[in-house]
């Protein structure tokens, strides 16, 4: 079995709070594996246990065939971990930081190779504190790759980045996978999980509530499409829209109403007809496929991002 990471019945408690409550999964070689969930779901704690930074209360974690608890140093030598290094050495250049980290390992990739892998060629001689947010994240990915690890761990890599920077980083992550490494990332961006990950573990309150490829997850829970809109005119709360044709579910989030429907045309026709009849107007209409956010919402009753 070419499992790069094997986690079995992992538990971590902080007093009464169950940060990680019996998690099990495996990560295959060459995968991009994601843990998706809201803040405080237990993603970071899980990752830290796998990296060897925290001790689990019970359960087993194997990385590249090594028991993390018993051989932490061997594990550390072969994994790549994302660090906020700009804070550590703000006045070193990109190249200098990479060379510094290379000195920590007996064998490492060349600095230029690393710079090329993350598309930072133009900034190779720039001080790290002068990098933009997206460039810093790319640098931290490069640092995780210094020791040619078989798997790298990225903890919420695109948090705080603008869309363009985010997309650049996604490209880098895909390049990393093409170069042969396995990627384990945590995120609370549904789009990121959908776009990047081969498989996603949806996690909430320390438990995995779903684990599959994004498409499979969506298909399993939603045949339907989602129709989103806002209502002007009469109080939206006084409406009951479940009886509209083909509607399977109705959700309301402030002013926005989401109808899950098997037949978009039928539902829309009925919606507008009712609007004309009862005197409300539909505004900001948006029809889309279901997403992982919808899956999460369905499974937990909450949004991923509050």
């Amino acid at each position, binding site marked *: 079995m070419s499992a790069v990471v094997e986690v079995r019945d992992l538990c971590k408690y902080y007093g009464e709070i169950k940060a990680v409550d019996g998690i099990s999964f495996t990560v295959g070689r060459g995968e991009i594996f994601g843990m998706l969930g809201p803040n405080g779901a237990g993603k970071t704690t899980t990752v830290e246990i796998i990296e060897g930074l925290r001790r689990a209360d019970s359960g087993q974690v194997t990385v590249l065939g090594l028991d993390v608890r018993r051989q932490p140093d061997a594990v550390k030598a072969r994994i790549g*971990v994302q660090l*906020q290094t700009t804070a550590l050495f703000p006045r070193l250049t990109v190249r200098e930081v990479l060379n510094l980290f290379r000195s920590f390992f007996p064998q490492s990739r060349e600095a230029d190779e690393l710079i090329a892998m993350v598309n930072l060629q133009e900034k190779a001689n720039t001080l790290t504190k002068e990098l933009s947010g997206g460039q810093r994240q790319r640098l931290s990915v490069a640092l995780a790759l210094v020791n040619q690890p078989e798997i790298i761990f990225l903890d919420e890599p695109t948090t705080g980045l603008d869309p363009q920077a985010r997309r650049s980083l996604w490209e880098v992550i895909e390049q990393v996978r093409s170069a042969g490494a396995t990627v384990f990332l945590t995120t609370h961006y549904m789009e990121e999980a959908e776009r990047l990950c081969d498989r996603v573990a949806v996690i909430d309150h320390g438990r995995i509530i779903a684990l599959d490829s994004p498409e499979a997850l969506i298909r399993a829970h939603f045949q339907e499409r989602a129709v989103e809109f806002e209502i002007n005119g009469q109080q939206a709360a006084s409406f009951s829209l479940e009886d509209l044709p083909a509607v399977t579910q109705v959700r309301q989030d402030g002013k926005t109403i989401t109808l899950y429907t098997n037949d978009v045309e039928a539902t829309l026709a009925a919606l507008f007809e009712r609007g004309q009849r009862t005197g409300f107007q539909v505004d900001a209409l948006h029809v889309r496929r279901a997403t992982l956010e919808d899956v999460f919402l369905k499974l937990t009753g909450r949004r991923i991002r509050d």
Partner: protein
Amino acid sequence: MRALRALTVAAVKEYVRDRMALFWTLAFPILFILIFGLLFSDPDISGFRVGVVLEDPEDMAAAGFYCQMEAMDRDEGGEAFPADDRELCQRALERAIAAGYVSSDTLRLRQQEQAGSEEARLPLYISRDSREEVLEALKQGDLAAAIVFPADFQLQMGRAFARGDPVPITIYYDASQPTRAQVLQGVLGGLFERFDQMVTQRPRILAPQFQPLQAEHLRTIDYMVPGILAVSLMQLGLFAAGTVVSLRERQILKRLGATPLPRSALVTSQVLFRLIIAVLQTVLIIVVGWLVFRVEVGNRLGMLALFVFLGALTFIAMGYVVAAFARTEESSVAIVQAIQFPMMFLSGVYFPIDFVPDWMQPVLYALPLTYLGDALRQVMVEASAWKPLWLDGLVLSAWLIVSLAISFRFFRWE
């Protein structure tokens, strides 16, 4: 080891590219020296105060020499002859002329010569007192030298005339200022040569013998330069806390634990880096002190290096004690300020320890900076010791060991 070297080099690069850090650790102490040096500069002693001891005031020869020196001093525009000196000199002169040692014409001629010529400008201030008073004044640093004419000087002079051996004259001088002492020896030696020729027209019957006497003579700036160095080392060490706490606060220390880099390597590289900066500060402060204020640092460089390193390490360890207990960078800075400001002013580094009132003495004894300042002062400018060097070293080492023990016990990486 490669990692340690790389980390230390990285820390130095960071420092060199950080203008604020450079200012506070290098430019600031130098500014301090310059400002304090200018504010508290002692009056310029352009002349040398020389005391003369006449063990027998009636000894004609001795009195004669003294009066001659006085005359030269007065010629330079000094105050009028004190009354009893005038009498003394008058009597001595009469007797010298009567005995044929000096012809009145020659004397007047010489005086006129010297009054007119450039090279006669002796920068001497002469005064006459008892032996105890004169030597005491020398020890206090009020005099640069003391000439002692023994009671039987005239007799010795007579013998010297007859036999040709020069008469030894003891001149005590303040050895704590080597440059000044050299000039003084030159001036007084020249003076006696001139007397020689004046009196006898024969080369040498006087042989001044110079005796060094250690005097406590520190200018304010001499006292301050080691103090400024001590304070710089203290700040260098204590502020190490801020970096570590900031890294811990941002979880970077924790995450570094996921790399094979031993976290101790990071701390060690910080310590090494700070020691390098300590050496840099020391060299810079000494050079500036010398260039601008002629503060002479003795040649006990080995001892100096020892105390610089010991002091730096002690305060770095204390910095890590602060880091062990401070949760945020802000609080660590606040704690360090609360420690270092009182220590700066209560440790006798900016003013002599003797000036500290009695009720504050216990505070002095409690503060490590006091001992470092004392050690550096002794080693750098030969100040009188408050405590012996070995005791200074011992106390600092004790602080170092205790601080290390506390940090090891309480420091957390997260």
